[in-house]
């Protein structure tokens, strides 16, 4: 079976003799259609073939969309197996189309449970109250188990001779790793990402930051704080980026609730700094530091982990030139922040040394287009290159 990404070998589910080839080798057929019949050598396959004929006639001539189809139950007594290639079942309902009971929605909101991480047990996979309560219980158990896990790692020797280690080992997914594993394909697969990168001259911002940090009794400002502040301002000016795809509408937010990705030992967590648009640089600095600390200590309330309208992922501390991030649905965009690097720059005065930062915006194409993302980045660039704007 050929997909966008790979050729997959399919093995027949049943045993028997290949009695009829309906689609010859090398030809194309939509996923889910009958390509041949495997049966007992003397079995009557007339009915199966007749059904196949009518089904084929019903198929549109053009490439039919790949619809996963369950093989129909075979009539009792018959061993004939239809070879139907079944497309891999998708990644489940997209986050925008969660089926949730009103009560479950309220309980989740009050307890701060992210419904996208909850498995529904109601009719048609609908999330009901019981599911939210069970997710809450499971969350509590995960938090309790974490310290023991960390302690175990602490006593593990740093360097072990390779011979003492098995060739490979399977490490059980931590709850956070499992959550990331479940959530990210729901973003990367259904959300059509595109990326816009821009280089920002950070010389003046760097100077401003040093000046601010020299002030006594004032909170220390990080580059990330400058970026959060710049994003908050830019998001309000370009609400099209501060938006979420909702199936039949695009929901545009007029508040900048910014998720700030924090790396943990075993994963990643994105606490949300709310109402950034109305916060000063100092407030942002203090609050985001406190959020990150509590995130690392796993002391965040669940409410602080949901409701972002936009996210920032910063790998600057790892000397990363630039990278692109996966959007955290239902948000419409995420900003990937690289390191502020000292690079040779050409100016009117000749060759010099400057501080440069690469920002890459990942955008949901269902929400916005390239130009919109570029304008937002332009605004960010202007704010950071004329950093006094961040103070007013």
């Amino acid at each position, binding site marked *: 079976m050929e997909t966008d990404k790979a050729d997959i070998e399919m093995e027949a589910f049943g045993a028997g003799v290949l009695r009829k080839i309906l689609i010859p080798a090398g030809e194309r057929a939509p996923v889910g259609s009958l390509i041949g019949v495997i049966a007992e050598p003397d079995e009557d396959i007339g009915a199966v073939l007749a059904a196949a004929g009518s089904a084929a006639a019903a198929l549109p001539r053009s490439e039919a969309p790949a619809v996963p189809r369950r093989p129909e139950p075979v009539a009792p007594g018959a061993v004939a197996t239809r070879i139907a290639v079944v497309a891999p079942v998708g990644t489940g309902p997209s986050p925008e189309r969660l089926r949730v*009971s*009103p*009560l*479950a929605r*309220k*309980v989740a909101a*009050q307890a701060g449970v992210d419904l996208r991480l909850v498995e529904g047990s109601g*009719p048609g996979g609908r999330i*009901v*109250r019981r599911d939210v309560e069970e997710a809450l219980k499971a969350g509590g158990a995960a938090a309790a188990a974490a310290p023991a896990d960390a302690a175990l790692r602490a006593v593990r020797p740093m360097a072990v001779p390779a011979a003492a280690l098995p060739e490979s080992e399977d490490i059980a997914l931590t709850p956070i790793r499992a959550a990331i594993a479940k959530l990210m394909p729901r973003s990367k697969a259904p959300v059509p990402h595109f990326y816009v990168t821009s280089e920002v001259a950070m010389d003046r911002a760097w100077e401003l930051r040093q000046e601010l940090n020299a002030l006594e009794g004032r909170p220390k400002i990080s580059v990330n704080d400058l970026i959060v502040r710049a994003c908050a301002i830019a998001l309000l000016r370009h609400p099209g980026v501060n938006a979420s795809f909702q199936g039949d509408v695009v929901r545009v937010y007029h508040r900048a609730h910014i998720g700030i990705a924090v790396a943990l030992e075993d994963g990643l967590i994105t606490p949300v700094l709310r109402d950034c648009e109305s916060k000063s640089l100092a407030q942002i600095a203090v609050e985001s530091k406190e959020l990150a600390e509590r995130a690392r200590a796993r002391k965040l309330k669940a409410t602080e982990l949901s409701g972002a309208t936009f996210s920032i992922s910063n790998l600057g501390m790892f000397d990363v030139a630039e990278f692109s991030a996966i959007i955290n649905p239902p948000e419409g965009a995420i900003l990937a922040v690289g390191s502020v690097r000292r690079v040779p720059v050409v100016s009117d005065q000749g060759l010099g040394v400057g501080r440069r930062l690469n920002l890459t915006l990942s955008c949901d194409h269902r929400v916005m287009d390239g130009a919109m993302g570029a304008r937002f980045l332009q605004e960010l660039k202007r704010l950071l290159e004329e950093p006094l704007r961040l103070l007013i």
Partner: protein
Amino acid sequence: MASQKFDVAVVGTGPGGYVAAIRCAQLGLSVATVEDDRPGGVCLNWGCIPTKALLRNAEIVSLFHRASEFGITLSGFRADYAAAIQRSRRVADRMAKGVEFLFRKNKITLFPGRGSLPSASVVEVAGATGTQTLEAKAVILATGSEPRSLPGIAIDEQRVISSNGAVRNERAPASLVIIGAGAVGVEFADVYASYGVQVTLLEALPRVLPVEDEEVSAHMAKTFTRRGITIRTGVMVRAVTVSQSGVTVEAGGERMQADLVLMAVGRAAKVEGLGLEALGVAVQRGFVKVSPSMETSVKGLYAIGDMAGPPLLAHKASAEGIVAAETIAGQRPGPVDYGNVPSCTYARPQVASIGMTEAAAKSNGREITVGRFPFTASGKAVALEETEGFVKVVADKATGEILGAHIVGPEATELIHEFAVGRTLEATLEEIIHTIHAHPTLSEAVLEATLGALGRSIHL
């Protein structure tokens, strides 16, 4: 005679058994049913349906009594109790025929006679013309229940009758003592009182309709008392003595004389005579023990309805029948939601409830909010001249979850289903409020009570 083979044999064709049989047939299984009475069980023949016919008669009689309120002058009328019973029998016959028709339509074979199980997959049917043997891959037991009495008091269906006698008896007594003020006792009190019988209603628990919300019980007691029904609650019956002239009931330090006593203290599961003990079927407190998929402790043997435990309600039996049938057909149905079974009493005023009473919700430790709306403030109820009663909603304060709903008044038993659907869908107060209710309807009282729970009633 050789045994006949089926996929499923259903013993008992009440609202549990016949529904299970039809569902099995829909799912492509061959089905045999066994019944020693008419199809339809107690519900169709001797319970729910004929009593509803009698209650309709009672309602019409009461409307004739109230004719002047509507400006209608009657020069006397006569309500014939025997005719009411005869009509209720015709109604029951018609419904039983309906079940027979559904069996034919679904190609379900009916074996008249008493069923018993020599093994878990064999049903022996002792009928009028001999014994037949059925072999089935799965057996569903749905034998129901029968009226029970108090210790030392025999139901003779002459002077001390059960509901079975009451639905057959064409002669209304001059006076009647009803022991037990649950749904059955209250409904017969209504029927007999409407036909001019002097009714005394006795209840051992502190209030009538003791499982309903306290406000509902209080309202019911007040209305019945106003209608001339004598109510004694919190009284234990010490003795019932039958004599030539009638019956004497000793209860709560009083001696009461009446023509008849109606025993309405509850029902007992029919688990005897089926051979369950020999099969090792677990029985607990008189009911067959079942799993959430209605299977007994013996594999392939299912039990549903009254015999499988409370609540002893036809609609609960039907729901269990569907679960059993779908399980047998290899599906994995969700279990019956016993917390969401509506309970209905069809007296005047009608009573219906679902979920928790206010007291139960409070004792559950939840912070609750309660909304009430009286039918006196409902335009439709006033137009109907049926302003008795109210709608009461008990909800969780934090989430608006509908914990319980209690309705007493006109068409309460129909109105309750808005809450039933709401609870199934996990709707909260807000979803009910956002639903536009047609005007003028009794259902507006549901909306208003729900608004009331948030302090937002418009018409109060």
